[in-house]
């Protein structure tokens, strides 16, 4: 398991604090998810009608990880800052690109990505840390490069996050797909990945 040092913006005092990105989710990370995220998410979602609750509020990361942990084509990531789990991601490397200019070429596909409830403006304003989403996209791009996929990345965005992927990361929107509950598919080309890594988008 590799650990990368990254930085998140702590809004409480507007400072950048060190965080660790692990390229494998461990039982310790899942325990943090269960003990720290779940109670906050349940409390928040419990006060809302189901249709108004965060779209990923019912995700069970333990089950998701159990389904893929023995498969070589999947990789999981955990982001920890100041001893607390801030985000989780699972990617796979068996999907193909859909944008015409790279159609059929392999992509790293973001199966699932979430940030901790206290990093969501919908639940906790001001959010505790900023920057979790782009750290994960950077990790997906670097994984894609390591695989020889040139930084190509694809994902199905939850409705509330579409703006982030299109405007803040530079993904190309390809539209909703009925095979994925009509979630919108987004894809990044190698050149878009280069721009992302230069913080040009």
């Amino acid at each position, binding site marked *: 398991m590799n*650990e*990368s040092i*990254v*930085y*998140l*913006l702590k809004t409480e005092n507007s400072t*950048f604090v060190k965080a660790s990105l692990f*390229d494998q989710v461990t039982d310790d990370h899942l325990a943090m998810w269960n003990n720290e995220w779940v109670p906050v998410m*349940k409390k928040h*979602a*419990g006060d809302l*009608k*189901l*249709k108004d609750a*965060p*779209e*990923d509020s*019912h*995700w*069970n990361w333990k*089950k998701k990880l159990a389904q893929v942990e023995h498969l070589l084509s999947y*990789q999981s990531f955990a982001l920890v800052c100041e001893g607390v789990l801030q985000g989780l991601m699972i990617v796979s490397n068996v999907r193909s690109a859909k944008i015409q200019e790279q159609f059929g070429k392999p992509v790293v596909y*973001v*199966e*699932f*990505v*979430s*940030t901790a409830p206290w990093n969501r*403006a*919908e639940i906790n*304003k*001001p*959010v505790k840390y*900023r*920057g*979790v*989403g*782009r*750290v*994960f996209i*950077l*990790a997906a791009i*670097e*994984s894609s490069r*390591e695989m020889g996929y040139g930084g190509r990345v694809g*994902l*199905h*965005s*939850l409705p*509330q*996050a579409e*703006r*982030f*992927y299109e405007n*803040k990361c530079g993904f190309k929107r390809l539209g909703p797909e009925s095979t994925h*509950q009509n*979630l919108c598919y987004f894809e990044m080309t190698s050149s878009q990945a280069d721009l992302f*890594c230069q*913080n040009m*988008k």
Partner: protein
Amino acid sequence: MKLNYPKEWYEKSALIEGDDEIGAGAPPVDWCAREDEGGIESRIALGQFVELWRRDKGWNAERLASEAGIDTVEVLELEKDPRHEPEPDAVYKLSKVFGVSSRKMMELAGLVQNRNPYLREEAIRFAAQASPLSKLTDVEQQSLEAFVSALTLTN
């Protein structure tokens, strides 16, 4: 995979990100269950049904799990956490122990599409009347028997 980017990269990146939501991924079963706003009520009823049924038998959760061939944790989560998405296999095995329709148990658990609008009404009525006391009251006993009938009927 190891990231080797300077601190400045993350500083600029966090400012670009702002407070945007970042969730991605098409969740399979649980997402469909959430579309049904009756899902939680049905699962509350399912949890109370499981608890009352075993208490009526004088079983603890461990005994019920053993009889069904499932984990004790699964029984406890079913009883206590209506947001818990039960394993289809566990619901099926429990329905066999209870002697009720596995299809209707699956509907209550939100694992298959609800085909019977009356089942939800029946479940809410049951959930409202049953309360987790240590011993079944006469009302709970009658309520449990009526709900078992509703779950057993074939239509």
